[in-house]
């Protein structure tokens, strides 16, 4: 066996080059991009799941939504709908559908018609109506993300106006609705495919062998190993430049990096923070970075003493040296936070001035609040690495040292991750480290689930802070459809959140996508998905 020769191929990235070495079959005289993904998709129906890993493998390459996020931003752009309009009262959204969009074909299914309103009705009705014939095609599945985004309480019904027009009638004015429609769970499935598979008696095929309208169509999946796609020649957005897309499932981040170096993949997911410095100097790799749509924060449980006192919360804000945390924990791959939302999000209020790092002033505030000799607190820290916080323990130790300087003794506590989240919802926490990654680029998606009054009961609001003025503003912002008006409301809400200080916003992390030099036109996505429809591969000589 000629191992040396084999590995040679692996470092060659274009199949044309592979063919020169006399290796490739005819089908492979094409451009194949290999992406080292971090895990296996849970399944192939985008409506059932909530993880980015599954979305990367399913909804991103193979499906479309009525509206979509422009790659790299959270701007809403047309998808399967060419345009949409909201009624003046904000209670109805009408979508004009794109004409001539073709669903994929497979060995088991050839579409007889183009995409139309029936597909939209089918996709949403099966999630909304438990009595829909396709509401439950597989045991144990739920429409988790649809439920999570509270769509049941937002959408009243979906109407077919004509074959290329649909209208969503809402139960209440809900401006973030349109951002929800760009999310993965809102992918449009083929009604015809579902009917045909049901008639043929293998309705599971509908979920397992996806048919979408997206830039790539499904070829095969070998469990835990490889997912294969091929370019959709009829893609309405223009055929992808690469011919084949392969996901090589590689769970260990160090091994993904090794594969990238060895040329076994072109793009890798989620590098280890510790490897980032090495990647920067690697001549074979372009390290692309983007501000994450996230926030890492420390939440005070305002239901507990001494955090019921605003002055204490402000004092503890002032006592924390954020710059030191960013250097030590984020190693520069982050930016200090002062608001609950990241600066990449519209309505970010840059006029809010962060609390200065000032131990003396903090101590004075603490005395004014009635704690001249300091106090003792319990600080819960994250037991796992999260996108918004690479090292919870290290961060907790730094904060502990900072607070010590103003006489506040922090006891560090943590639990197993599932337990940590479970307990956070009970309200037993004192001060707790947490964070959030945005779902859809609507500011509402930060303010309401993290600081809204209803989220105190739901458990997402771990500071259990329910402030009337703040709540009124963020609720009002839901009912206004003009973005400028909404932004003004959110800007005011940020001033209140700053003044009341239910959190210490710590940082917004920077994400990295390492790609090999021969990859052309790769753009990072704002919601941490990985898009390959516009990517090309250079011939490597």
């Amino acid at each position, binding site marked *: 066996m000629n191992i040396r020769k084999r590995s040679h191929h692996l470092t060659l990235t274009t199949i044309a080059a592979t063919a020169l070495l006399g290796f490739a079959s005819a089908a492979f005289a094409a451009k194949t991009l290999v992406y080292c993904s971090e895990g296996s998709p849970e399944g192939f129906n985008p409506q059932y799941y909530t993880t980015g890993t599954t979305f990367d493998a399913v909804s991103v390459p193979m499906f479309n939504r009525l509206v979509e996020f422009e790659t790299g931003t959270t701007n809403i752009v047309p998808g399967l709908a060419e345009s949409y309009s909201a009624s003046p009262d904000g209670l109805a959204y009408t979508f004009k559908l794109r004409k001539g969009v073709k669903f994929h074909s497979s060995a088991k299914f050839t579409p007889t018609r183009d995409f139309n309103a029936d597909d939209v009705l089918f996709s949403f009705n099966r999630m909304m109506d438990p009595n829909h014939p396709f509401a439950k095609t597989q045991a144990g599945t739920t429409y988790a993300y649809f439920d999570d985004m509270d769509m049941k309480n937002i959408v009243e019904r979906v109407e077919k106006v004509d074959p290329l027009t649909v209208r969503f009638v809402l139960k209440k004015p809900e401006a973030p609705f349109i951002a929800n429609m760009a999310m993965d769970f809102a992918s449009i499935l083929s009604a015809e495919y579902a009917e045909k598979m049901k008639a043929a008696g293998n309705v599971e095929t509908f979920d397992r062998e996806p048919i979408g309208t997206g830039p790539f169509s499904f070829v095969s999946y070998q*469990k835990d190993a490889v997912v294969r796609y091929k370019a959709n020649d009829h893609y309405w957005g223009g055929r992808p430049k690469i011919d084949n897309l392969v996901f090589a499932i590689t769970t260990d981040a160090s091994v993904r990096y090794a594969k990238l170096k060895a040329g076994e993949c072109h793009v890798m997911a989620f590098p280890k923070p510790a490897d980032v410095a090495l990647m920067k100097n690697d001549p074979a790799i372009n390290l692309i970075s983007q501000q994450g749509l996230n926030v890492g924060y420390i939440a005070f449980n305002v239901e507990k003493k001494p955090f019921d006192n605003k002055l204490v919360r402000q004092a503890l804000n002032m006592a924390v040296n954020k710059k030191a945390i960013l250097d030590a924990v984020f190693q520069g791959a982050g930016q200090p936070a002062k608001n609950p939302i990241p600066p990449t999000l519209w309505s970010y209020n840059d006029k809010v001035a962060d609390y200065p790092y000032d131990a003396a002033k903090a101590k004075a505030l603490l005395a004014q609040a009635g704690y001249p000799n300091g106090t003792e607190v319990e600080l819960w820290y994250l037991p796992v690495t999260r996108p918004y916080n690479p090292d919870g323990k290290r961060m907790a130790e730094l904060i502990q040292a900072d607070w010590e300087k103003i006489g506040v003794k922090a006891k560090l506590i943590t639990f197993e991750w599932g337990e940590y989240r479970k307990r956070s919802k009970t309200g037993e926490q004192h001060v707790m480290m947490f964070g959030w990654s945005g779902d859809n680029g609507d500011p509402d998606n930060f303010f309401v689930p993290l600081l809204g009054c209803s989220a105190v009961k739901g458990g997402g609001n771990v500071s259990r802070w329910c402030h009337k003025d703040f709540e009124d503003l963020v609720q009002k912002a839901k009912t206004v459809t003009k973005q400028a008006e909404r932004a003004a409301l959110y800007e005011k809400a940020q001033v209140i959140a700053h003044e009341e200080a239910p959190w210490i916003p710590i940082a917004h992390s920077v994400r990295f996508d390492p790609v090999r030099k021969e990859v052309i036109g790769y753009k990072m996505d704002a919601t941490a998905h990985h898009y390959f429809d516009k990517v090309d591969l250079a011939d490597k000589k």
Partner: protein
Amino acid sequence: MFTFLLKRLGLVLPTFLGITILVFSLIRLLPGDPVEALSGERGMTPERYQRLLHEFGLDRPLAVQYGEYVWKALHGDLGLSTITHEPVFHEFIARFPATIELSVCAMLLALLIGLPAGIIAAVKRNTVWDYSVMGASLTGFSMPIFWWGLLLILMFSVWLGWTPVSGRIAIEYDIAPVTGFMLIDSLLASDTGAFKSALSHLILPSIALGTIPLAVIARMTRSSMLEVLREDYVRTARAKGASTVRVIGIHALRNALIPVVTTAGLQVGTLLAGAILTETIFSWPGIGKWLVEAIGRRDYPAVQGGILLSATTIIVVNLVVDMLYGVINPRIRHT
């Protein structure tokens, strides 16, 4: 022989019961549950939590859950994975051949190198040969698989570029699974390139996984050989003028093999345990990697079913090993 088999099978039943109880309770002792594992940073309303718990059947008393689990398992139904919603048995069977393929290769490597090394160490006792073999095997035995695997990747795949980093086969080969064994499937597809690729992908993980069994086998062979070499019949064989090769290869080795076979059989457990780490590092799509994921996400049915089926494999292999004694040494007869 038949009564022996019956006796052994009689022991298997309580073993299985013990395993089910152990796995069932241990996984539930871990903090968190499958529903909690689904929720992430987002709060889940208590109503939805309860509804999902009910859907997974986890809101019933533990005894009822256990009873139902055992009853269904006896009927071959191991339940549905809470992550993929597919039958656990299918999930297991789809991945098991990959683990067997890797384990068999690792075991072959361990035997092919471990046996001769042990024999050499015993014959050349207290020489530099002996010390090297014993030193190397002690090092191999103490090597953490995770670290060893990454080291192998960095050395042979990244620096030298001799072997692929990870996976089962180069991505240009799309071999449809027939038997599930990549080496066999690529041959069935009569694609020599694919076969070579599959073989090259097996080298590093086999070394990583085979190192500990290799060390154990080498050491066991050495000590067993040393004992046998002291026996009278070996001296007699030498005295009657039999060649060294014959004395060692036929007279001594055959008798020395019994404990080695026992050890090798017990290594099946080590292999399956080691597969968990090896598969994770080498992105090997076997049951080890699958189980790690299942534990992390509290996929109770997958963990229970996966461990039960793995345990079955270990029990069966050890039973076969027990039967093999009689083949190697006709003096041992099971009655």
